[in-house]
């Protein structure tokens, strides 16, 4: 036959050589090679698609290639037939089908049927309704969320089967897929179903429902969400308004109802407090991260807690407990247990150290290349010395858990008292007594503190137990475990040689609390190489330090090591004689660090004209070092003090009144307290009275002294003004801009402070991005109120963005060295911080942090926000009781002074 002599794709080559090259390339990569029939089908369909629309060709080919060369004929036929049918309507529909049919067909006939129904309904509204919704369907099916995908199709069918206006349908086409995509996978199906029942009742309820989900309803479990939605819908039945308020969680009742049902605690909510605890307990920062951050590294069986030596991982949402309080307690418990591995240095296992210290380990690990760096950790390397690494690991894990628990018993009896019942419950649930084996028996004995293992009945288990207990009595390092494993492994391997499944760690452990060495190896890999380089350099100098110690230090310092830290390490953890030069040889160590390619952690010196400040990253829960550059800037463009003078003119009344009020704040120098019971000198008038009284036989008063009190008002204040672009906005109901009013306030402020005599400074800030935050000094502390300062106030104009944290830090640096008793930073702004990469929660967290730092340095930070309504986020930004909102900026000049008077009155 002539056909069979030609390659099936030749047909395509003739029709469109360019596409042929591409298709042939893809086909060549297919394994196993596709059948001839498939290729013929491919060529025909592609040519057909190209004839319909040039772009469609590729899409169809792609679909067929995804179905695969070995796909069932039926499936192929079905696909091609459906795409062709769609093509009869138009190329757009054909393209949609070609793109999205593959996963649907793969999911089976039930899905296909649902798909057909839904698409049929949606096409009734117009092809435009299909784009977004179908792409999300593909995402769900690819993630193998078949149930959710089914529910999603039903949701679409219900929605678009209703009589809805074009505008609404355009909105829903955008809204629904986005909402479904954002749902959490494990609750997605239930949430889609509830969304459907909401839409069934009234499509207008979609927005309130999604708002409520965002505010917290999304954390409800399936049945609870159903109860919540039922309650909301029944409210809606009585009064649509009440239903909307309920579902969107804007009504008090809705909020309460939802809060009562809520059990889940998202990790993000408690992370900061867990990390604070860890920092306190361990003395260094240890991040807590969501399990989802592990990606494909997540250990088998999705444990409730694990760590890689860098961070502790907890589930993104903690939902095992009855209520939020129980979940928070659970999270804390897990963190406390896991911190034990860090406290007793489980992750600092160093094979070289074990070999040096324990001959048994040295014999066992003789053949291991311990210096290599291969993405495994030393523990894995050690375990691979055994014929059955899983058995060695099982012994070792018992030891490690037991060692940490012994440490708990010694140092944290309270912790152990809380942890043991929880572990015990889990153990009873996971391991029925009938299925006890040596491992679980020893676990109960060593970790749970249970009775001796007599129950298992075998003498060798009791021997093993004794062996463990003897060694645990002393405070032993992690390497002692390796020694123990070497000692008991052979006998144990022989014992349980035939017992299948008993030679490894049980699949599920109480609370999933254990060590996962592969995680550790992968996490340390990037640092291992640097640590090894450094170790070698040190060894060349005759200084012996273990790699694991260097590694740990590098991790804690995020890859930066100063020569002082290295020196400390050498002196405390190094072994063998310290060479005479080592303790004083700072420069040598610094050079060594550089030679090993490690950045010395020296501070970045300011170049004299700019300052660098850290920024708080609330995602990392840590500072980004030297992240922001603040540059001092000058106010230019104005040489006269017209604004200053005209303001004084306009506010003559206020000025006079404020001067009088501030005169009262002014100290009067010495106060004399007459007739005081004790003091520096006699009050002679009282003394005369005293003598007269005595002569007259009356009992004289003993209040005979004068006391001098020097009244001091020792206040320094820095007024920091936001000069962002938004200050150019006009004031509601007036002609002036926000900044113009702020300038007036500054003028009055200067006048008042001249009267009262407080030390004060004025500065403005703005900028673009983290490398250029401008800090305009208008008046420095100690500078007189010169015409130049007055001109500076006149010359202020709106600039760019608001990186508040850096400005506060720089202002704090100005204030901190002053010796005044009260140091005050008043920030005047018209809204929230906002800059490049400095928005929302990040900006708020950093600003709050900067204010906290200032308070820690005894600088009071108060903020005045003008021109916006009260916003609860302002509390988050500055802290409760530390900020004032002035809705109408025109009140600012007056209120600023009143406020200042109040703040400093009792100083």
């Amino acid at each position, binding site marked *: 036959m002539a056909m069979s002599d030609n390659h099936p794709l030749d047909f395509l080559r003739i029709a469109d050589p360019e596409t042929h090259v591409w298709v042939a390339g893809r086909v060549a990569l297919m394994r196993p090679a596709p059948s001839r029939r498939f290729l013929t089908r491919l060529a025909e369909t592609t040519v057909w698609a190209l004839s319909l629309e040039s772009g469609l060709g590729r899409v169809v080919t792609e679909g067929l290639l995804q179905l695969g060369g070995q796909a069932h004929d039926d499936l192929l036929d079905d696909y091609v037939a459906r795409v062709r049918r769609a093509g009869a309507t138009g190329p757009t529909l054909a393209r949609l089908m070609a793109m999205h049919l593959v996963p649907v067909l793969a999911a089976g006939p039930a899905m296909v049927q649902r798909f057909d129904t839904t698409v049929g309904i949606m096409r009734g509204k117009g092809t435009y309704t299909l784009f977004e919704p179908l792409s999300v369907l593909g995402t769900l099916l690819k993630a193998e969320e078949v149930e959710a995908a089914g529910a999603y199709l039903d949701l679409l069918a219900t929605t678009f089967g209703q009589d809805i206006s074009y505008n609404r349908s355009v909105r829903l086409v955008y809204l629904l897929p986005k909402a479904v995509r954002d749902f959490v996978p494990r609750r997605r199906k239930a949430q889609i179903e509830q969304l459907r029942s909401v839409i069934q009742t009234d499509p207008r309820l979609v927005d309130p429902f999604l708002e409520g989900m965002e505010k917290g309803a999304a954390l409800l479990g399936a049945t609870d969400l159903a109860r919540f939605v039922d309650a909301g819908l029944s409210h809606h039945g009585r009064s649509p308004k009440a239903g909307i308020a309920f579902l969107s969680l804007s009504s008090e009742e809705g909020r309460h109802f939802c809060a009562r049902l809520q059990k889940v605690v998202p990790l993000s909510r408690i992370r*900061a*407090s867990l990390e*604070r*605890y860890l*920092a*306190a*307990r*361990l*003395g260094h920062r240890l991040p807590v991260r969501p399990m989802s951050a592990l990606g494909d590294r997540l250990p088998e069986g999705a444990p409730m807690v694990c760590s890689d030596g860098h961070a502790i991982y907890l589930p993104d949402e903690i939902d095992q407990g009855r209520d939020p309080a129980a979940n928070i307690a659970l999270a*804390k418990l897990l963190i*406390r247990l896991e911190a034990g591995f860090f406290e007793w240095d489980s992750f600092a296992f160093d094979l070289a150290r074990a070999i040096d210290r324990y001959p048994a380990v040295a014999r066992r690990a003789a053949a291991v290349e311990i210096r290599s760096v291969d993405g495994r950790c030393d523990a894995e390397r050690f375990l691979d010395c055994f014929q059955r690494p899983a058995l060695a690991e099982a012994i070792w894990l018992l030891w490690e858990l037991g060692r940490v628990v012994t440490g708990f018993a010694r*140092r*944290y*009896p*309270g*912790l152990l008292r*809380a942890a043991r019942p929880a572990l015990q419950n889990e153990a009873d649930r996971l391991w029925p007594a009938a299925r006890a084996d040596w491992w679980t028996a020893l676990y109960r004995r060593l970790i749970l503190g249970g009775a001796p293992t007599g129950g298992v009945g075998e003498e060798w288990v009791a021997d093993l137990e004794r062996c463990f207990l003897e060694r645990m009595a002393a405070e032993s390092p992690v390497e002692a475990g390796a020694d123990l494993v070497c000692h008991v492994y052979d006998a144990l391997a022989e014992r349980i040689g035939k017992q299948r499944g008993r030679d490894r760690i049980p699949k599920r452990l109480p609370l999933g609390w254990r060590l996962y060495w592969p995680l550790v190896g992968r996490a340390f890999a990037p640092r291992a190489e640097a640590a090894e380089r450094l170790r070698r350099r040190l060894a060349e100098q005759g200084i012996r330090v273990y790699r694991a110690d260097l590694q740990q230090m590098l991790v804690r310092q995020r890859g930066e090591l100063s020569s002082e830290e290295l020196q400390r390490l050498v002196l405390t953890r190094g072994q063998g004689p310290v060479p005479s030069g080592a303790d004083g040889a700072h420069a040598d160590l610094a050079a060594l660090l550089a030679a090993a390619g490690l950045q010395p952690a020296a501070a970045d010196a300011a170049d004299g004209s700019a300052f660098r400040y850290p920024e708080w990253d609330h995602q990392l829960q840590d500072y980004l070092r030297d992240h922001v550059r603040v540059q001092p800037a000058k106010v230019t463009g104005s040489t006269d003090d017209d604004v200053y003078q005209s303001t004084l003119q306009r506010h003559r009344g206020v000025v006079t009144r404020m001067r009088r009020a501030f005169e009262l704040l002014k100290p009067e120098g010495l106060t004399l307290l007459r007739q005081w019971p004790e*003091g*520096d*000198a*006699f009050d002679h008038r009282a*003394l005369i009275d*005293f*003598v007269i009284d*005595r002569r007259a036989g009356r009992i004289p008063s003993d209040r*005979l002294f004068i006391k*001098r*009190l*020097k009244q001091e008002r020792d206040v320094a204040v820095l007024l920091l003004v936001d000069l962002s672009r938004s200050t150019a906005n006009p004031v509601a109901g007036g002609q002036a801009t926000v900044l113009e009013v702020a300038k007036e306030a500054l003028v009055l402020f200067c006048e008042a402070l001249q009267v009262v005599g407080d030390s004060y400074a004025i500065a403005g800030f703005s900028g673009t991005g983290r490398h250029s935050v401008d800090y305009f000094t208008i008046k420095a502390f100690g500078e007189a109120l010169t015409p130049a300062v007055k001109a500076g106030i006149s010359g202020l104009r709106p600039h760019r963005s608001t990186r508040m944290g850096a400005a506060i830090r720089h202002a704090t640096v100005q204030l*901190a060295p002053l*010796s005044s*008793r009260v140091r005050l930073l008043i920030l005047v702004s018209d809204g929230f911080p906002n800059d490049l990469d400095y928005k929302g929660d990040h900006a708020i967290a950093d600003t709050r942090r900067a204010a*906290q730092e200032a308070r*820690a*340095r*005894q600088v009071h930070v108060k903020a005045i926000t003008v021109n916006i309504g009260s916003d609860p986020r302002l509390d988050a930004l500055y802290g409760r009781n530390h900020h004032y909102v002035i809705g109408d900026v025109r009140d600012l000049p007056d209120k600023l002074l009143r406020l200042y008077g109040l703040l400093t009155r009792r100083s």
Partner: protein
Amino acid sequence: MEPLDNAPYLIENEPYYLSSGDEANLFQAAWEAKLPVMLKGPTGCGKTRFVQHMAWRLGRPLITVACHEDLFASDLLGRYLLMHEETVWVDGPLTRAARMGAICYLDEIVEARKDTTVVIHPLTDDRRMLSIDKKGETLRAHPDFMLVISFNPGYQSVLKDLKQSTRQRFVGLQFDYPPAAQEARIVAEEGGVSVSVAERLVTLAGRVRNVREQGLTEGASTRLLIYAAQLISRGIDPAQACRTAICLPLTDDDRLQATLADLVEDLF
């Protein structure tokens, strides 16, 4: 003038003090060399107790003045009082100490007004004199007289500072919270608890001092630990005692309190 009675200022029983370095010898040498001494260190780490101990050891009377911001020069030097229609001069604590050859201890000197601290200047250099203007007397200090001041650099650097002219008249002794094992012995001894309980209190203090970097301005002092131990020895539940004596005095911040509570829970 009649000899001064120093009996009320003598310390009879040995005050408990556990030395953690060479400070006792240094102090004694300074006393012999007639040098004034400045004790630096955080609050509640044992500065005052050290002075008491040394006064006992040297057999000298001890006069302590807790400085405050209304402390005037006359509060230190003395003043005229009225007695039987006569004015009688009464020595202030500093004058009394200089006369009787006592150790005068000005606790938290930075709390005093800056002009007040100047009166101690002539006493602290080789003149060892005190001029009492009001009385027209220039007092030469007793050979055994010694001046000791203390301050806490933790907050003085930002709020107040000791003038260089004052600072440079003293020899300095640095104090800090003692090492854990020693601190435990001190807490056990002073608080009347077993060493194991004291050790746990000390561990707690170590953890709290870690929190310091996270927002607490000062860590838990040895004094607070002793308070907690004293409550425990009187039958108060340890966790409760720690909350009362350690957590609550340290901070008002709710979130830090929660962390402290967690730490306490771990330990007891």
